[in-house]
């Protein structure tokens, strides 16, 4: 089984780790770095729970090979709160109940974060489309959309 040295940045920290050629980014994050905030909710590319930002763009860690992230900048849910403070998006998900069971929440927040970075003022339609790759079984999406709307335009 071939392994290679992977150099990348995860949550602002430079890393060098040996990864197997076939190792998925989600497994690298969860098992090697113990960043278990990134979830796996399906058998590959179905649900969006593993959404992380790669160079600022939302990507599915469960269908991304870790080895393809050479030189990239990865951001996971663990990086969103800084210095013990929730981001405004996290605060909104918390206060407006954009999270119920919480399992889809990290992926949902990362997808929303990606949207807000490229379009700081999305309308409801744009929010719903940007999150349409992220399944939630609890909320009916109502309060998720409201959570994102609460910080849109800031």
């Amino acid at each position, binding site marked *: 089984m071939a392994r290679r040295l992977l150099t990348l940045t995860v949550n602002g920290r430079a890393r060098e780790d040996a990864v197997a050629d076939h190792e998925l980014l989600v497994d690298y994050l969860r098992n090697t770095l113990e960043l278990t905030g990134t979830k796996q909710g399906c*058998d590959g590319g179905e649900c969006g729970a593993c959404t992380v930002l790669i160079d600022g763009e939302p990507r599915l860690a469960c269908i991304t090979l870790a080895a393809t992230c050479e030189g990239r900048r990865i951001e996971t849910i663990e990086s969103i709160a800084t210095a013990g403070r929730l981001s405004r998006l996290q605060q909104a998900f918390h206060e407006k*109940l954009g999270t119920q069971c919480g*399992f889809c929440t990290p992926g949902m927040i990362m997808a929303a974060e990606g949207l807000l970075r490229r379009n700081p003022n999305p309308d409801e339609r744009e929010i719903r489309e940007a999150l349409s790759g992220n399944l939630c079984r609890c*909320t009916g999406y*109502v309060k998720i959309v409201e959570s994102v709307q609460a910080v849109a335009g800031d």
Partner: protein
Amino acid sequence: MARTRVVGQRTPLIDGVQKVTGRAQYTADLPIAHALVGRILRSPVAHGVIRRIDTTAARAISGVRAVITGEDFAAPYGVIPIAQNEWPLARDKVRYRGEPLVAVAAVDAATAEAALAAITFEIEPLPAYFGAADARADSAVLLHDRKKGNIEREVDQLFGDVEGGFAAADLVREQTFHYAEVTHGQMELNASIVEYDAVEDRLISHSVTQVPYYLHLTIAQCLGIDTAKVRVVKPFVGGGFGHRVEPLNFELVNAALARAAGDTVRMDLSREDGFLTHRGRPETDIRLKLGMKKSGEITAVDCEIVQRGGAYGGYGLVTILYAGALLHALYRIPAVKYRGHRVYTNTPPCGAMRGHGAVDARHAFEAMLDIMARELGLDPFAVRRANLIAPPWRTINDLQVNSYGIPECLDRVERASGWKTRRGKLPRGRGLGLACSHYVSGSAKPVHWSGEPHAVVNLKLDFDGGITLLTGAADIGQGSSTLLAQVVAEVLEIPLLRIRVIAGDSALTPKDNGSYSSRVSFMVGNAALNAAQELKRILLAAAARKLEASVDDIDWEGEHCRVAGTERVIAFDAIVEAALADAGTLTVKGTWSTPPETQGGKFRGAAVGSTAAFSYAAQVVEVAVDEETGEVKVEHVWVAHDCGYAINPLAVEGQVQGAVWMGMGQALAEETRYHDGLPLHASMLDYRIATSADTPPIDVELVETHDPLGPFGAKEASEGALHGFAPALTNAIYDAIGLRLNELPASPDRVLDAIQARSREERLRARRRAKDLQPVAS
């Protein structure tokens, strides 16, 4: 000065920060190092006799630590004590494709998979039945011994004078309906970690369960191990919706693997595994006959239901009983005949799913109301208002209704949807539909009747002045831990932050019957209320002693006590100190049980459907139907839910929105499909769950009827609004294009088929008419 209340406030979840930061740890996230990897080999045969399983080669592989089969278990299991016919790994026979057959534990995933590949077996196929009718045929081979006709349970109930009721009706109509099987689809994949201590033969199971104590008992039963040697810990759980109310095969298999390997084993299951484990809502056929007066008053109901239950009992007999029981208690009905048939088939077992048992029957009933109202020239609101209950009310099947919000729910959605001004005036293809629904606030009798109180909560108050609430009730995302903390904070008039909740650890928390049948807010809420009152009594006495006053003269003012009308005050920390000085660490208990009059009648199966309180809901759905493609788009939903009292209005709204949305999934798109027992839907791409882009606005109004038995008057809020969506949808489709859809889901292919069938029928009729009018050739 009026104090700030804790209940009735929009309260974010007490564990919400952990969820939005990714710190919440679900089973698969637990940092348990050096665990072996568990894997399951599943049967490729839908029905057959196991002739041989050879695990020799698998055992010989280096790094394989355990290989087990059905023979390695001490006893079968099942959620219903009288229907325990399932083995964690198949024994003697397999009964569905995907049934667990052999399990292995190995040092890593690759070794475990190599071991599975090295196992050989021989299964002699038997005829397999994938539909209820085939399984019920006279010639069918039996799935289970002594279960004639492959019937798990027959229900035959008669209440009131049904024949007389139909005779007295001005209109009698009968219709058949068909409903696809649907499944829970909770987002968290199933997972189990079992830590096994080989020296002391003890184990700790970390699992995704909704009912920790029952998993605890079942592990002990299946492994033949002393119950005191087992501990079940529930980490964060990513949704349940009924999938996890039964102990599931993988949880028992992983415990047995850990014991066989003498080590810790983790088992991460796939999404496909989840579809095979299933326990969802069964494929259902309904024949429903209703009698009605010109006024809209219902005179009699005759209903027959067949459910394709799958290969094992599970919750099946409760499901088929619920379907009949909840024909009652929504409207005033004088006579009901109900026949139910729960059938064994060679498909993954069905079980409890949100709205348990009553969802399909509610669709049929509300659709019939719509059909008959049209024929009688009555508005859909009027026909429901002609059948209202006046509480307190006892139904003819002995269910007790003490609070009833349907009248107000109807008024609210009629107003919110603009029904009076908009209905009948929308363009073709657009329509409005109405339906009502209800559900229990906890099953009045627990599944495992032991005579104990129905709910127990402990509160521990110690040196730090913090109150630890201990409950066995599993918070699976519905927000139950937050609600319980609110109840205690309200009684003691203290800030929420002074309370921490430990939920679902069978070594620490008192037994709880579990998070099912929407029982936690009501039953455990009442137990928490009683526990808090007990703690308050002890603290008041301590304060009185310290202030050298009579307890009757002490005013409890939240974080301090005062001798009434004076400036003599004692702060909370000093009260705690005084109370602990007397007794040491304080642990108080609160209990609650459903009053006997709410526990149902005396007939067989009467416990199912009985509850201390029913929630009620009404909803209007607006649709746009594309007659070219058959696509049905939901434009808007207005729902009013009678939750008794909203202890946490934020969470109640969230629950109602989620329930309506899940009803929408079943109504529009979700269905499991099998080819010779092989699931064709076993991914989130093939099993169509609505995305944010497919979801309409869902406007929720809360109706508060202040139930006399509920904690602060509260009732359930998580299920009752689900049942009404599907009938409101099909009633709206009729309003839009004049088509009655009696089969769900209303997927484009079904809608288009129905539209085309109607066009064919119209053409034929026109041709026949033209022929009749032609002059006879001379």
